[in-house]
């Protein structure tokens, strides 16, 4: 086997059932997946696991925790340029926005709405990791 080493994806989500399903999809798609079930261990995993991409759920526990996780990741030396996908169960493009990130809010690469079509997820992840 001479295939390239698998890209490593970090999933941060407190909905374990969602997490497991997404993990399976990514593994089937040929990725190595590490998971974190809360924001803090997610931020730690960015440092310890050095992933190629992270998927962060916006709605962990309290509204907005996802935002603070993203901020903390962006402050880490390994997290400054890490490709980030943020997931939300509400349509953030829609008319109902509970919070608007401030101007200085760290950039994420993509905001996607839950649930995700497997093919879409794999396509986006591939785009962002290449």
């Amino acid at each position, binding site marked *: 086997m001479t295939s390239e080493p698998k890209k490593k994806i970090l999933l941060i989500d407190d*909905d374990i*059932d*969602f997490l*497991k*399903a*997404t993990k*399976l*999809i990514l593994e*089937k*798609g040929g990725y190595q997946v590490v998971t974190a079930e809360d924001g803090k261990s997610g931020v730690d995993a960015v440092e310890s696991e050095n992933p190629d991409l992270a998927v962060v759920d916006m*709605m962990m526990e309290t*509204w907005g925790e996802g935002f603070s996780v993203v901020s903390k990741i962006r402050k880490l030396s390994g997290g400054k340029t890490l490709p980030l996908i943020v997931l939300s*169960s*509400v349509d953030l493009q*829609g*008319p*109902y926005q*509970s919070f608007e990130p401030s101007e200085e809010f760290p950039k994420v690469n993509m905001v996607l709405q*839950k*649930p*995700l*079509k*497997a093919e879409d997820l794999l396509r986006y992840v591939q785009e962002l990791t290449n």
Partner: protein
Amino acid sequence: MDQAGRPEKILIIDDEQSILDGCRQALEKLGHEVLTAADGEEGLRLARTERPALAFVDLKMPRLSGMEVIDILAKDIPDLIIIVITGYASIMSAVESLKKGAYDYMPKPFAPDQLRAVARRALDHRNLLIEARRLKQERKEIERNFITFVTHEMRSPLAAIQQNFEALTMVLGDSLTDEASEIIERCRRRIQNLEDLIEHWLDIRRIENGTFVKEREELLLDEVIQRAVEEMSQLCHNRDLTLETNLAENLPAVMGDRESLVRVFINIIGNATKYTPAGGAITISTDYNDSYVKAMVSDTGKGIPRGKIPFLFVPFYRADGNDNQERTRGSGLGLTFCKRIMDAHDGKITVESKEGSGTTFTLHFPRSTPREGE
């Protein structure tokens, strides 16, 4: 006293010293702090710096008149209850002052007991106003939290189920039989319906508490219709329906919230696709006259029985009763949503239908600007 039992500040504005003294004596007996002003300007100054709960204002004063004072106080000092003091001859102006926002009036001369009774009633009134506003805010807050709660707690499990179906499909891959695929697809569709239902229900709540339709701007229906058509053309194509527009030239702009109106058109077109047999057509046209701008969505579908039309906008009503075909199953809230959105635009939605030949939904918008040059 206020609700916590603290004394209130009461301001008396009158150019007669005897009235000022009399009022002070009478009201101080109730334990209140009484401020007095001999003219309107001094009264306004005290009202702004001291923020009294009540102000008694004499109508007949030199320089700044009582009416002007009331006008400014009613606009500038929140929660201030204004009571007019007036001579017999000026009942008409007392009425006028009530219109300007005064709560009550007292004809001169008045007894101390009378004054105290009016003051008590006015303070009660003020407390009720403040309490009512507090409750209203509290209710709004609960409502908002509830929406947040529902959004998270109801959608998250559905998203997790959908995601697991995705994973299951992927894990099984080629070993997934047609039969099993169908089962999964059925489950998915029902979950999707439930998601739509929650979405529509939330939309209606948002309209009710005003977090929807807040961005009103002057907009052209042509653009709104164009966006809805783009969004729906694939679905129409899949169902072998033609979707065409027949838009009036120079259609005047309307005042509206772009996003919610796009949703209204998508909803109505979506409805039409459910009830129009393959090979049929859905046409969107526009029209206007001096007082309104309207948009029509017509289909060549099976039509709605006359007796059912009045119930179309009732939440969860289904024109097709229990004849619940897969493709016509919806949330039961789509048209309710459209109606609420149109209400919020000061417009309306009407429907005409002929069984066997088709249905037309018409959206009526008031003209946003009055005619010019006539």
